[in-house]
């Protein structure tokens, strides 16, 4: 513990608000990981399939939100079109499966790399825009993608493509998806942690605070912004590949709804933008909230209202999110401080 503290100081985490409590983050992290890994083995558990599917969904959102956070949190470039990469991943792996018979579990990485390259190209937007015009451009990007996908006959247009299911017995078929999503989530959170503690991450935070000053200080802002955009597109691609295979159906409206982008933003803001634990906490809470809301009210319209209202309330009262607000008030428990 003492040693990690020394390292943390040396890496100059923002010193605001030392953490409290005696439960270390390592014990909590280990516990969470062990529970997550063991869960699919408890096959006699009641509503096993439900738990498994919620777990898969939570991991998916953690992975996407943690990726979004690299661009929207650390760099301060808020993307409302990040599900373009989610869609790209789904279609890349889906096509490889349909045309060549390669399993998306293997090609998810290919899908990720494809998204990464796409993110590198889309990142050129950051050369010319920042703030509101960047956000507007990302919305336009999303709508251009929707228009293309809806009318691209080779990809099934708006009707989409059906994918074959993996050849496993129905009671086992969701288990590999669960573990694969877990890996994607762990990977994205680890990436976030690495970014936080690297020179790269410091440059990104400098850009978020004041891009002109960062530029003057000798930071190659263009290169860093492009890298941040590309990196933040990788895991959405991976997760898109897995999700498309999981639901066995690729359709533009499933991937490209703006509500999906809104979820990423909401989760990051609920948890805390620009923190490592934020996306995890945000994803878990928002999914839990959603499940309860669907249980109570049913219907997806109410979900939209809740998404919007939560976003407004967080911005009004806790713009730093749960982690950020607790840290500002010096009340962040040590086990929640993963930075």
């Amino acid at each position: 513990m003492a040693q990690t503290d020394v390292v943390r100081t040396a890496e100059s985490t923002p010193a605001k608000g030392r953490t409290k409590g005696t439960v270390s983050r390592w014990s909590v992290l280990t516990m969470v990981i062990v529970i997550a890994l063991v869960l699919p083995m408890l096959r006699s558990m009641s509503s096993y399939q439900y738990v498994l599917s919620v777990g898969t969904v939570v991991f998916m959102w953690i992975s996407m939100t943690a990726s979004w956070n690299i661009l929207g949190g650390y760099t301060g470039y808020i993307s409302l079109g990040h599900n373009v990469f989610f869609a790209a991943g789904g279609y890349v792996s889906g096509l490889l499966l349909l045309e060549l018979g390669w399993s998306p579990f293997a090609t998810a990485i290919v899908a990720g790399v494809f998204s990464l390259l796409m993110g590198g190209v889309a990142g050129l937007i950051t050369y010319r825009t920042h703030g509101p015009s960047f956000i507007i451009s990302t919305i336009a990007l999303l709508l251009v993608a929707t228009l293309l996908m809806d009318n691209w006959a080779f990809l099934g247009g708006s009707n989409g493509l059906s994918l074959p299911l993996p050849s496993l017995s129905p009671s086992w078929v969701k288990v590999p998806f669960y573990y694969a999503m877990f890996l994607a989530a762990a990977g994205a959170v680890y990436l976030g942690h690495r970014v936080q503690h690297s020179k790269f991450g410091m440059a990104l935070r400098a850009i978020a605070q004041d891009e002109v000053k960062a530029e003057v200080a000798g930071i190659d802002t263009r290169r860093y912004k492009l890298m941040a955009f590309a990196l933040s597109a990788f895991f959405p691609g991976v997760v898109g590949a897995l999700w498309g295979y999981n639901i066995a159906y690729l359709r533009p409206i499933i991937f490209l709804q703006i509500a999906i982008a809104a979820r990423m933003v909401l989760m990051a803001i609920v948890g805390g933008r620009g923190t490592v634990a934020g996306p995890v906490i945000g994803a878990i809470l928002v999914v839990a909230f959603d499940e309860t809301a669907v249980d109570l009210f049913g219907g997806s319209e109410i979900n939209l209202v809740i998404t919007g209202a939560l976003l407004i309330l967080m911005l009004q009262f806790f713009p730093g999110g749960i982690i950020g607000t607790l840290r500002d008030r010096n009340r962040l428990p040590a086990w929640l401080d993963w930075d």
Partner: protein
Amino acid sequence: MAEIQVLILGLLLGGVYALMASGLTLLFGVMRVVNLAHAAFIVLAAFCSFYLWEFAGIDPLISIVLIMPSFFVLGMVLYRVLFPRIEGTPRFTEMTVLMTFGLAFVAEGLMARFFGGIFRSASPPYARDAIILGDYYVPTGQLLASTASLVLLLGLWAFLKFTRTGYGVRATMQNRDAAQIVGVDVRRVSTISFGIGMAMAGAAGALVSFLFPFFPARHWQWIAILLSLIVLGGMGSLKGAVVGALLLAVVSSFVSHTLGPVWAPITFFGALFLILLVRPQGLFGKKARV
């Protein structure tokens, strides 16, 4: 001469787009607020107008008189509820984008819940009529809507140009701090501007109710189009919004004529990316103060 026909239709469409965009650009100009919920409120107004027509027989053009004042009040209330807490935060504009993003979802969800998710369209008698002029035709509904837009935009211009409050609004647009120093009540000006922006959205919605079929989720397409054209014109510039609207509506009419209506929206996004590449501040925009 199909081209002249396309041009006529494009200009008529542009008139309505200009009205739809005017509130959006006004809010940005005065308060640096990007209102992503603007089109959602246009759809809300369209629903109001639709129901007034269906159940009370009130003509959508007449319903403007009812909708504008109610939306004016709604706008002022929303402004006072949502914005004071985040005023003065760093990156205020981005905060407003996120905030109104949430507001758009709330509005969309509530509309879907109470009005249903199906296509609606009011059908006053003139909506399907056309005036024949030699070889060309002018749809009566479009003509009336564009005329109404023109009247409202002229009214807005006259208000900004000749009234005392209008002076205050323009002063705030030019320089918020300086306006405050010379005695403009910026908070009051902002509240009124938000009301006006919302009233313009309300009027636009009443016109939309009989021009285009609409449903709650339709507003995302519209807001993207409207944002593209105000970026083209220069964010915050009323003149820019009008020019951008006319220009892009005409171009998109030609795109729609040659490639098919599905591709018309590409015009707006293409123009957005092009203008960001060539002149990020837009046609009539001033270089942003960082």
